[in-house]
């Protein structure tokens, strides 16, 4: 059960997450930019935060490639599912 990889600096990841959360709040409520740009930036920040949690706290960055593939495969399927639903609504 011993891990061979160098342990990430968890506190540094926590600081990143805190700063990104503060940036999200500032972007959502303070910055006077267009709604579409705001939406894209907020989604980008949320995905960035989720990736930090997945890669460093769930250790996906250090797992074997086949486990990483197993974990990542549902994500494009989920995006296809949501886009298919949205296109159904538009039609």
């Amino acid at each position, binding site marked *: 059960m011993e891990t061979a990889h160098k342990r990430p600096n968890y506190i540094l990841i926590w600081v990143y997450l805190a700063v990104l959360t503060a940036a999200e709040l500032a972007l959502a409520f303070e910055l006077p930019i267009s709604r579409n740009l705001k939406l894209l930036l907020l989604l980008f920040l949320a995905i960035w935060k989720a990736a930090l949690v997945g890669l460093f706290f769930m250790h996906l960055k250090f797992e074997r490639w086949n486990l990483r593939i197993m974990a990542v495969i*549902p994500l494009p399927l989920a995006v296809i599912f949501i886009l298919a639903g949205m296109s159904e609504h538009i039609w």
Partner: protein
Amino acid sequence: MTHAAATVDQMRPPYPAERGLDVYNTKLGMWVFLASEVMFFAALIGTYVILRFGAPGEWARPGIVLNIKITAFNTFLLICSSVSMVKAYAAIQDGDPKKMRFWLLLTILGGASFVGIQVYEYIHLIEHGFVPSGVREGSELAELVAKGTLPAATMGLYGSTFFHVTCGVISMTYLYLTKALPGKYSKADYGGIETVGLYWHFVDLVWIILFTIVYLI
């Protein structure tokens, strides 16, 4: 009996075993479960997005009734509990069960506080007439609902997260009482901490996405 066994063997000829994912079964099981959870939340979030952006009128922003600052604090609390969970994992990897118990207890407290704040939010929503079955007649939100807001969609998302976090807190408390406190985890055996940690980080990850979609967009 012998004949039946022979028939089964013919149906399933021996096949050479291959090297698998090289992880223990509980961890593999958790990853398979989490993969199914991705599809579960994809369905929920997808439904919410379609209903919200397809609503005929303006969708009631959560900030009208709820205090976004409290929810932002709750988000930060969940992120902190994720850090304490991974610190518990690192501590037992280093063979320090005392430190592991401290960090695990902190994670449980963080998770329980998150659940407590969510309960406060539900009570607040219900007081304002925002109930899962619809919006109470004459409440201050009734007008917003007429414009297209669907409480069931929002409450469905809140409720699912609430259920998942509560399950996580119960699981961690169970492990703390039955394994961590009696000293059953060691440097050589910490699979339970890693597996429940994976679940907890996943719940954190989902809330990060939900917070943005429900509260910020």
